[in-house]
């Protein structure tokens, strides 16, 4: 039940796009049609669900203050947390590469759908943001971290699919010329963000 709460909280109340603006670049660039939006959204759920728990283990057993004490008493005082940025991004880049190869080998159909989006994801702030928030939240075990990753990925998926659907329709509306394209996407995201504030209790 606790895990379910965490999932709902990370997907809605702390939605990556509407409350933190994570992954806005690809969110705006790839949201022109629903089909591509679904592909990218699914790839984000997938990668967040893998990298957050992996980075959680890295954080708990290697990087955090005193995390190396399992190596022996001499290592108990080491604090490697200043290395976390570079380690996290390396894990993400390596994982994305690995996932791409595995998917290509064992699930060619899925690769056809997700393939072109996977490389984009290594530099999507939603992915690194998920790991950095995980670091601040002090989860009790790896299951919580996995659920958090999947939940935030689902929130991102929801956001990009919703905006893509609106943008497909708004093509037929008479938008003021200077706002066409990106400008309107910003306003739409702002209005959707207002609606999502409801989950925070405003």
């Amino acid at each position, binding site marked *: 039940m606790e895990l379910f709460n965490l999932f709902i909280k990370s997907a809605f109340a702390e939605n990556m796009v509407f409350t933190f603006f994570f992954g806005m670049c690809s969110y705006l660039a790839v949201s022109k049609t629903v089909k591509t939006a679904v592909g990218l959204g699914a790839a984000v759920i997938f990668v967040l669900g893998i990298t957050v728990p992996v980075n959680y283990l890295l954080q708990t057993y290697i990087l955090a203050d005193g995390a190396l004490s399992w190596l022996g008493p001499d290592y108990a005082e080491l604090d490697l947390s200043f290395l976390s940025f*570079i380690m996290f991004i390396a894990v993400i880049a390596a994982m994305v590469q690995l996932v791409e190869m595995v998917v290509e080998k064992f699930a060619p159909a899925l690769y056809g759908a997700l393939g072109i989006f996977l490389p984009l994801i290594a530099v999507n702030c939603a992915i690194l943001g998920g790991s950095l928030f995980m670091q601040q939240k002090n989860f009790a075990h790896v299951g919580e971290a996995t659920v958090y990753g999947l939940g935030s990925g689902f929130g991102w998926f929801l956001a990009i699919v919703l905006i893509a659907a609106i943008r497909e329709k708004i093509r037929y509306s008479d938008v003021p010329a200077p706002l*066409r394209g990106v*400008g309107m996407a910003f306003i739409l995201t*702002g209005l959707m963000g207002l609606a999502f504030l409801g989950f925070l209790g405003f």
Partner: protein
Amino acid sequence: MAEKEALFSKKNKKLITDPLNFNNPVTIQVLGICSALAVTVQMDNALIMSFAVLFVLVIGNLTVSLMRNMIPSRIKIIVQLVIVASLVIIVDQVLQAFVYDVSKQLSVFVGLIITNCIIMGRLEAFALGNKPWASIMDGVGNGLGYGLVLVVVAFFKEVFGSGTLTIPGMGKLQIIPEAIYEMGYEDNGLMLLPPSSLIIVAIYIWIQKKNNPELIESH
């Protein structure tokens, strides 16, 4: 390339001025939005974030440009990420040492400079194919263009959201005078919430494209 180009030739100046207006990284190229929107609740956060990005962008551009003939194209993303991540670690440590409060408020957004698309975008699109000096100019231009949008958004958010302006070194300044509050004016709390920065950027884009009609998109 027999003649040596002047340090501030017309072409190099253009590299700085273009990103300030009709090739702005945030509003036109749509890069680096995440941090641009999230750190703008107070002016001082916006200024410090802009300096951090400017620093990483200039040094990163310079480094990649110097190494551009040595980086194998297959692994260039990893090489760029490592360069940027090292620079961001330096920035983070400096912020924690000298302006701890701001560093706490920026929280994860300092780390997210690594995946700020302006940085990766400029490294990929410019520094990989240009000489070091031109790359520095490009870094300065795009860093300033990014900072410009941040400062504009932060100005409106802070003045209308809390009636103050926080400038580093001068503290919190009251912009909206007490007399107006006594007449019944109230701060618009909505301005401090995330959605309002999106609307402000949209209005910025609107004005900018109105003045430069050639930038208008056809849906």
